[in-house]
């Protein structure tokens, strides 16, 4: 075997070992190569997220007779996003919390909303970005609202208009009753049986009629993109 082929064989063996035994090093490389948002854009988007969280609180207090505690009684843990699904079929994240942290399938995952108003930024709320889909020992995969298979029942605004959130590159609100009055900019929040009620998600975007003219539909306006998901918050136990 020539020297070249020996070197190649060694490199292939090292590559195989890295692939199977050291995936975390690959995630570190991914985080280095992913784009960072500019500080001005970050400030602007933080303001938009704070706006979304506050709109939902206002909608809840006007519409609900009972208190809906967004965070509940379970412990909430901020975790890093290790990596994200690199192909076009799904939109999933790998986060740095797993069964060792009490995580189970179905737990909601949030983007923390930080108030830029005070000198020392404080977390003023959270925005639901997805659910835990698979759990490993120290990590978990999260299906985000950008995943084409993501679906959730939601409500809109103070009137609590029912709708279905369908995931995708541009998430959509579908099956909105035809005669309901829905206005762009109204808060959209979770109303799914397996999640705490009233979790902020986003706002109503442009409205239109469905193809069969039986329902209204709307785009879901979000104050973040997939690239903004670097630190998320999870519940350590399912509510």
């Amino acid at each position, binding site marked *: 075997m020539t020297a070249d082929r020996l070197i190649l064989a060694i490199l292939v063996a090292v590559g195989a070992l890295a692939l199977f035994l050291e995936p975390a090093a690959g995630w570190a490389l991914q985080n280095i190569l992913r784009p960072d948002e500019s500080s001005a854009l970050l400030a602007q988007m933080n303001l938009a997220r704070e706006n979304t969280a506050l709109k939902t609180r206002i909608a809840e207090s006007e519409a609900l007779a009972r208190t809906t505690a967004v965070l509940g009684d379970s412990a909430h843990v901020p975790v890093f996003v290790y990596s994200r699904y690199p192909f076009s079929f799904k939109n999933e994240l*790998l986060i740095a919390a797993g069964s060792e942290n009490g995580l189970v399938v179905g737990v909601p995952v949030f983007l923390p909303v930080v108030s830029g108003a005070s000198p020392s930024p404080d977390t003023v709320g959270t925005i639901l970005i997805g659910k835990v889909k698979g759990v490993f020992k120290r990590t978990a995969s999260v299906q985000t609202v950008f995943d084409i298979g993501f679906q959730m029942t939601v409500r809109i605004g103070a009137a609590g208009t029912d709708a279905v959130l369908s995931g995708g590159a541009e998430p959509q609100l579908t099956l909105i009753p035809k005669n309901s009055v829905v206005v762009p900019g109204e808060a959209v929040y979770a109303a799914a049986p397996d999640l705490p009620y009233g979790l902020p998600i986003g706002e109503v975007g442009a409205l239109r009629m469905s193809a069969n003219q039986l329902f209204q539909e709307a785009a879901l306006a979000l104050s973040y993109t997939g690239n903004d998901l670097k630190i998320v918050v999870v519940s350590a136990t399912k509510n």
Partner: protein
Amino acid sequence: MRWEKFLVALVIVFFAIVFQMRLSGSGGVVIDVALAALVAVGAVLTVGETALLIMFAAWALNWEPALSWELGVFMAVAISARLLRPLLPWQPWFSNLLAVGAAALGFNFLAAWPLPATNPVAFLTAWVGTLFVGAFIFQFLRVIFGREIGSAKL
């Protein structure tokens, strides 16, 4: 190893991986840039060298602690394209286009079915984009290494 060709291919695959990561985070149609690059650089590399780059790409793109079905298909399709390339009897540029197209089709159908059927417009857009990337990289390699590339032996 032909170090010059390998290094150029490594740089191309590296930038393809970076581009793939940025596309996947932005949402929308995601072209299989990394796969197109791996198939195209197979025109100037041996099977062993291509396998090494495929493993590097899989390691950089891996998002889970374990090797997933999608990544396994990605690697299998890429190496199959390299193995079958010498059997294609046509002009190198056309054989490259065919290899990239077949690899992208195989990857999407095996790893993501039924998504190509449920969202055919997005799938076709991504597939055409993948073809374009593969053709561009092949042409780039031709400019650097001459028009005789594409007849890589096993």
